[in-house]
């Protein structure tokens, strides 16, 4: 029966010891420990949250960067394309122009050659005519230097006329 009979003395000491233990632990142990643990938990969760946020930001930033890069690439391509076409057209233009120029030069050269040629021909004709006249004069003179020759010529001429 003793076993289940509470004892006043023990109850008294238990009361004193437990209550002081509760007070001391609450003040010197539980409060600092729980504060530290909960603060740490909070700082960890804050850090995790921040990391998550940063990751999100990074993601969006990256997406933005990608967008920008893509745009830049597209722009570059366009510019290159433009430049190429401009260059091509410029080259074509230049080619055409130079062709034209060359043609013009060639034409001018041809014209001048033709006119030179015509002039030369005209001069040649004159020269030939003069030379033929001179030759003819000399021939006539030699042909007509004696009577027999005059006669022979006359005959010759007469035979020519006959043939007509």
């Amino acid at each position, binding site marked *: 029966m003793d076993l289940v009979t509470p004892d006043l003395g023990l109850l008294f000491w238990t009361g004193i010891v*437990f209550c002081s233990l509760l007070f001391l632990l609450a003040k010197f142990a539980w409060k600092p420990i729980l504060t530290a643990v909960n603060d740490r938990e909070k700082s960890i969760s804050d850090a995790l949250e921040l990391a998550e946020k940063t990751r999100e930001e990074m993601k969006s930033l990256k997406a933005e960067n990608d967008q920008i890069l893509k745009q830049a690439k597209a722009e570059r391509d366009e510019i290159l394309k433009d430049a190429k076409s401009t260059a091509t057209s410029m080259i074509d233009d230049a080619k055409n122009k130079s062709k034209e120029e060359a043609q013009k030069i060639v034409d001018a050269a041809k014209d001048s050659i033709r006119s030179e040629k015509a002039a030369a021909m005209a001069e040649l004709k004159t020269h030939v005519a003069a030379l033929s006249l001179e030759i003819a004069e000399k021939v006539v003179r030699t042909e007509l230097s004696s009577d027999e020759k005059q006669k022979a010529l006359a005959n010759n001429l007469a035979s020519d006329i006959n043939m007509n």
Partner: protein
Amino acid sequence: MERVVKYFGLAFLIALFSFQAIASEADVAHEAEEEFNVSEMIMHHVKDAHEWHLWGPEHGGTTIYLPVILKTKDGIKTFSSSHFYHGDIIHDGENHYFKGEGPAEGLAMFHEKIYELDSKGKLHFENGHVHGNVKPIDFSITKNVTSLFIGSFIIFMMMFSCARYYKRNGAVAPKGLAKFMEPLIVFVQDEIAKSHINEKNYKRFVPYLLTIFFFIWINNLLGLIPIFPGSANLTGNITITLFLATLTLILTLVNGNKNYWSHIFAPPGVPKALLPIMIPIEIVGIFTKPFALMIRLFANITAGHIVILALISLIFINKHEAWGALSVPMALFISVLELLVAALQAYLFALLSALFIGAAVEEAHH
């Protein structure tokens, strides 16, 4: 602060050892003649005592004599319990008791209870109980009280050193003792307090729940150590469990809100005609819950001690060492089981306290 704690520790140790008086070994023959009484031996070990027996025969072995503090009609008397244990053993039929000597003159101790002797200098027995003798109020530093001091001191030093770790290092990952204690502390805070008491109120009760959890756990473990500073059946003492259960009851009653009381005096959805039955049942229910707490802890821990002692007694009942081959492994098995029970009972006590408090502070939600 550190110096204060060291000072406290030193004072405690001095106080502890100043009560210690080691007796010489003697008087073995008388013991051996007596029949080995298992139930008496077990009860003796499970109950409180005024000495802390270390080794050697029951009387005259090596013992720490603890101080006796009595409040008699003549005022407060303080002396060493050796004045009983060294006194004469008086046999009165089946009963025998110690007659005090020196400062304990006029007093006698029967089954660790102290009585005043009558005018003839005797105790009167009726059916094996003392009858008619005045019983002074006993505030002695008994074995359980000493164990209570030691256990509380250990808990305080442990937790204080944890707290100091955090103070020194700030909110970092813990090392050493703090590393071991932190999960338990966080467990009590989150799994016991937070999940059974509502968000608004749970913080107030965390220190109490932590204290009872560690108080019960550490004292349970101390009780499992077979020699000083363990072996006292502190948490298996009805006084301790009564005190702890009463604290939970008081916390429940003091913190009970309108919703809690309305569930007792006007249970919703109960027909008016049933109220005369329901209200007494509910009122009884307030008390049965902490009563169950008290009995559960007391019975579990005491039973563990009794089983281990009974198994060891097998050797002495059969009077042959060979029985040790059976009783020692079994006692070892039970001891290991008791390690689990020690933690489990601490958890259960804290958990159920949290549940009862949680029910008392619960907000109406229907």
